Each structure stands twice: as C-alpha cells, then as structure tokens.
C-alpha cells in the first residue's frame, strides 16, 4: 500500500468533515425537536393516530427512498415549485437535511416514548401537588427522567445518524462519502480511499460511544458508586 497516497486522500476526505458534522448536528437537533412534538401530539386521541402513522411510514421505508422522494419527487408538484419553500427545496442540501430530520424524528420519538413510559407516576404527582405548572413538570421532572432512561438507546441513534449522513452523497452533496466516491472514479483505487473514509467515521462514532458512557455516569452517579465500592 502506498502511504503517501493514503495520506493525500485522508486529507482530501477530511475536507468533507464540516458538511458531515453540519448535517449530523442539525438533523439531530431538528429530529429531537420534532420527536418531542410527536410525543406531545400523542396525548390526544387523533394525534396519537397521526404520530403512529408517521412513525410507521418513516421507520418502515429506507432512508434512501425518503431522500429521493423529497429531492426528485417534490419538484413534480406545481404548487411546491411556486411556493416560498422552493428556493430551499431546490437545493440538495436542504432536501437532504429535511429527509434526515424527518427520518431521525421517527426513530427518536420512539426512543423518547420508551423513556417517557418509564417515568414513575408518583414523581409527576409529587410535582403537581407542590404546585408546578404542566410545563414546569415537563421541564423539571418528566424530561430529565425520561432522557436519562432513553440515553443508551439514543446514543445508538446518534451513531446511526452519523452513518445516515453518508447517504446524502447520492444527491450530489460533497460530504466525506461524496468526496470519497468522486476520488474513486478519478483514481480507481477504491480500497485505500474507502478505508481512509471509514477510519474517520469510525473515530467519530467511537467518540460518541465514549461520550455517552461518560454522560450516563454523570447523570446517575449513585449507580456507579455502588458498583465501584
């Protein structure tokens, strides 16, 4: 193997890191907000049906088809081409980001739902008795407990989303995978290029794994103190 070639390619692929990080961070942020909204929607009967249908569709179909549907499919509707959203939906970046947000929201809402279910009724009642408003209860009791509970599953979702960002390369975006793909068609030395790209993704995912272990420890110190003794 040619080390200087790998080094060059490694640096070239790193050029796509900002876009990958951008899509990763924003899709997690948007997905989390939408997931919270979906769970609030579930408190009403009709809303519950809507949220279930949403989750069913987005978890039952591949992300690739969702990206293509938004990027190629939406342009077919005249009312979208003439709407204020068109300057955004014309751009592959916004289409890719939208698909990632919608997809992440479906998975995250299910993870959050599991966490919410694990919140003890007594804790919420205690909040109500001490005169907290519904919003304060959500902010100070329900969400912290639910998030702590959902953290291990959520860290896998964070890693899944990192891997999912690689798919935007199919709609011409030059993230790390897009650059790797372009470099392959120029040089035809696929193995070296793909291994360089894989190493960067792997490093990022290992950082997330370590970080989630650390946060979990911080959020529930009593558990680890007991086992350490």
């Amino acid at each position, binding site marked *: 193997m040619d080390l200087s070639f790998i080094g060059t390619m490694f640096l070239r692929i790193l050029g796509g890191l900002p876009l990958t990080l951008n899509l990763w961070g924003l899709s997690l942020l948007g997905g989390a907000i939408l997931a919270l909204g979906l769970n609030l929607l579930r408190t009403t009967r009709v809303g519950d049906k809507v949220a279930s249908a949403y989750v*069913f*569709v987005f978890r*039952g*179909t*591949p*992300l*690739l*088809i*969702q990206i*293509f*549907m938004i990027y*190629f*499919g*939406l*342009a*077919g*509707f005249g009312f979208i081409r003439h709407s204020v959203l068109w300057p955004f939906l014309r751009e592959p970046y916004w289409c890719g980001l939208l698909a990632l947000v919608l997809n992440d929201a479906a998975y995250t809402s299910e993870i959050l739902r599991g966490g919410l279910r694990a919140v003890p009724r007594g804790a919420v009642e205690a909040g109500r008795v001490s005169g907290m408003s519904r919003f304060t209860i959500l902010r100070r009791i329900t969400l912290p407990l639910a998030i702590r509970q959902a953290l291990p599953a959520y860290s896998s979702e964070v*890693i899944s989303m*990192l*891997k*999912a*960002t*690689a*798919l935007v*390369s*199919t709609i011409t975006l030059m993230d790390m*995978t897009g650059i*790797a*793909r372009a470099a*392959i068609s120029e040089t*035809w*030395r*696929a*193995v070296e290029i*793909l*291994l360089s*790209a*894989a190493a960067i*993704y*792997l490093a*990022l*995912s*290992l950082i997330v794994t370590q970080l989630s272990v650390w946060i979990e420890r911080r959020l529930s110190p009593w558990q680890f103190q007991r086992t350490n003794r």
Partner: protein
Amino acid sequence: MEDLALLGFGPDGWGKVLVQAGLMTLAVSVAAFVVGLALGTLIAWGRVSGGGMARALAHGYTAVMRGVPEILVIYLFYFGGRQVVTAVGTALGFPGPFDISGFMAGMLAIGLISGANQAEVLRGAWQAVPKGTIEAGRVVGMSRFTLFRRVIAPQALVTALPGLGNQWQSVIKESALVSVTGLVETMRQVSVAAGTTQEHFLFYAAGAAIYLAITTLSDQLFRLAERHSLRGHQQGGM
C-alpha cells in the same frame, strides 16, 4: 387516473417489473440475513466461550461494523472486490476484465454488517440460557455440538427471536443501498421508472409502498413465529 395506469400491468404499466424488483429485494435481503446469521452465531460463540484473542477480535469487529456507514462497506465490496478479483485473476494469468456482481457485493456487505448486529442479539440470548440445562446435557454425555444443537440453540433462539426480527427489518431497509451497484432491486427499478416517465413522486411512493408491504408482512410472520416458539411456556406478567 392516467398516472395510475403506469403502475398497472397493462402494456404501459410498470407493474410487472416492480413486482420482480420487489422479489429481488426479498432475495438479496434473505441471502444477506442468512450470511449475517451464520456470522453472528460465530461471533457470539467467540464472545461467549472463546479465549481472550477470540473475544478481542469479535469485539473489534462489532465496533468497526457499527461505526462505519453501510454504503461505504457496499462500495468497498463492489469496487474493492473488483480490485481484489482483478489482482488475483491477473496474478493467476487469466485474461481480464474481471467483475463482481452487485448481488454478491450487496449480499456480502449487508451480511457482514448484519452479522455484527445479530451477534449482539444472539450473545444476549445465549447468556440467558439457564446453566442447569447445559449441565444436564453434559451429564447425559452430549458432545459439544449436540449440546449446542439440542439444548443451547433451541432455547437461545426463542429469546433472540424479537431481536432478530428487528435485524431483519434493518436488512430490508439496508438492501435499498445495494442499488448503488446497479443491481435491479426495488430502489433501482423505481429510480429507472421515475427517470423514464418523469413521474418521480408517483414511483418513489410506489417503491415506499413495496418496502412497507415487505416490512409489515414479515413483521407479522415474526410475531407468529414468536407466538409459536412460546407455546407451552408460562406467560410472564404481560
């Protein structure tokens, strides 16, 4: 209504090729799942009863496969596979050009990814097998293989079934990525149809419906299997 005729089985309809593409999605998914199950069993075995070396290898493999995007692994097998086959073929003196089929690359790539995930499910189930039953098997003089076949595997599979069902769902969705190799499965076929007819939304929606049908139907099958595997067991609190 004219649009819907495009999805039908008439002379202008894409119905027939879409059904064929759906079957190809199923075929590549089943093949990849089986590869993953075989590999997952091997890795789980390494992690449960292997030595330090086997454990470290299995652990490292799982970490790598879970941290690298699936599409890179597929590219690696498709382009890299060609590179390797060409190198080996030329060295042996065969005339080129050499190629590796999209089906093969997709099956191996998704199988290897799924293997890492299935290993985690199987390991948990394996460790949940009651120790007493294994000891009982040993006492009546079963060989290691018989013990695995008649005592460990049947019990572990019951525990693992829901987790394996989830892995199967992931495999179906990952199979859409094999379209980048040019294999004509659902994703590829709807892209071609959408490009030809310029009815993008219609055909991607049809593709999504095919995937939904496959995931929903197979979910029902896994639930049936689960109920069947639990017959005779006492139900827990649920």
